[in-house]
């Protein structure tokens, strides 16, 4: 994945792969926070949900955001592994949502955007064909 491909948009205002990467990292962070009850404000980037990318279209900047995604994934996964099975059906910090439902939801959310990333790779190739 080159920075140029990650930053490519099919049209003005459409999300690029890079933004989907950061969006997935952000929601892993939110899921972790809701799972653990941690306070808001510790996501390393300013903003929420969809955060505009790239700031700098460089390989280093892309790598930094991929590291962020990996870090958020590992943090969420560690929290999930630490839940006792008997606690999965207890509430999370997200009102009305059990820890089990939260984890099922964030996993499906990841796949939803993974499908879009694959689609964007194909759209980008098609646009330059």
């Amino acid at each position, binding site marked *: 994945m080159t920075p140029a491909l990650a930053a490519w948009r*099919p*049209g003005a205002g*459409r999300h690029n792969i890079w933004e989907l990467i950061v969006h997935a990292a952000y929601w892993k962070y939110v899921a972790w926070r809701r799972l653990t009850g941690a306070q808001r404000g510790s996501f390393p980037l300013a903003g*929420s*949900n*969809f955060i505009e990318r790239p700031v700098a279209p460089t390989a280093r900047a892309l790598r930094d955001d991929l590291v962020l995604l990996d870090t958020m994934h590992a943090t969420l996964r560690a929290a999930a592994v630490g839940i006792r099975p008997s606690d999965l*059906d207890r509430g999370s910090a*997200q*009102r*009305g*949502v*059990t820890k*089990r*439902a939260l984890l*099922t*939801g964030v*996993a*499906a*959310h990841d*796949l*939803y*955007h*993974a*499908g*879009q990333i*694959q*689609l*964007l790779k*194909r*759209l980008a*190739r*098609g*646009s330059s*064909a």
Partner: protein
Amino acid sequence: MSVVGSLLDEYKRYKALAEAAIGQVSDEELARLGPGGGNSIDILVRHLAGNLKSRFTDFRTSDGEKPWRHRDNEFETASLTRAELMTAWDAAWETVIAEVSQLTDADLNGTVTVRRQPLRIDEALHRSLGHTAYHVGQIVYLAKEMRGDGWRTLSIPKGKSEEYNRQATRETAAAHAEMLKRR
């Protein structure tokens, strides 16, 4: 909430997301191929319908890849009307919801087969939900691309995250699906 219940709610969420996107595109846009011959929305819908119908028909007692399914055909262009397409979609989803609704968490350690390979039922369900979410994400992205500024958002509107967080009303998958159906 049971494991089965959480999976069923997520299935319904992604069904509702796809339908809310499909409802925003014209018949011509449904069949429009992506750049470079990429899949159209109707191809993705036929693929998901074919996959789900095959996997969940006689879910516990027969192989998930049925002899009557022709997967490769799902990726070829076909001149189905919207009504024909949605009839296949609805039939597939009726099968999914009926079969998954019959399960309890006690069933999840049982085994099903897909292409003669054994899978625990919980693994089969998670894999299927992941596959469904993957292609629904593509359907939504393509539909949004076609609608442009006229797109009616299916989640939190741009720039409204903080406002939504203060008064979240569709936090559960079931509530999100209901909101999408009422639009």
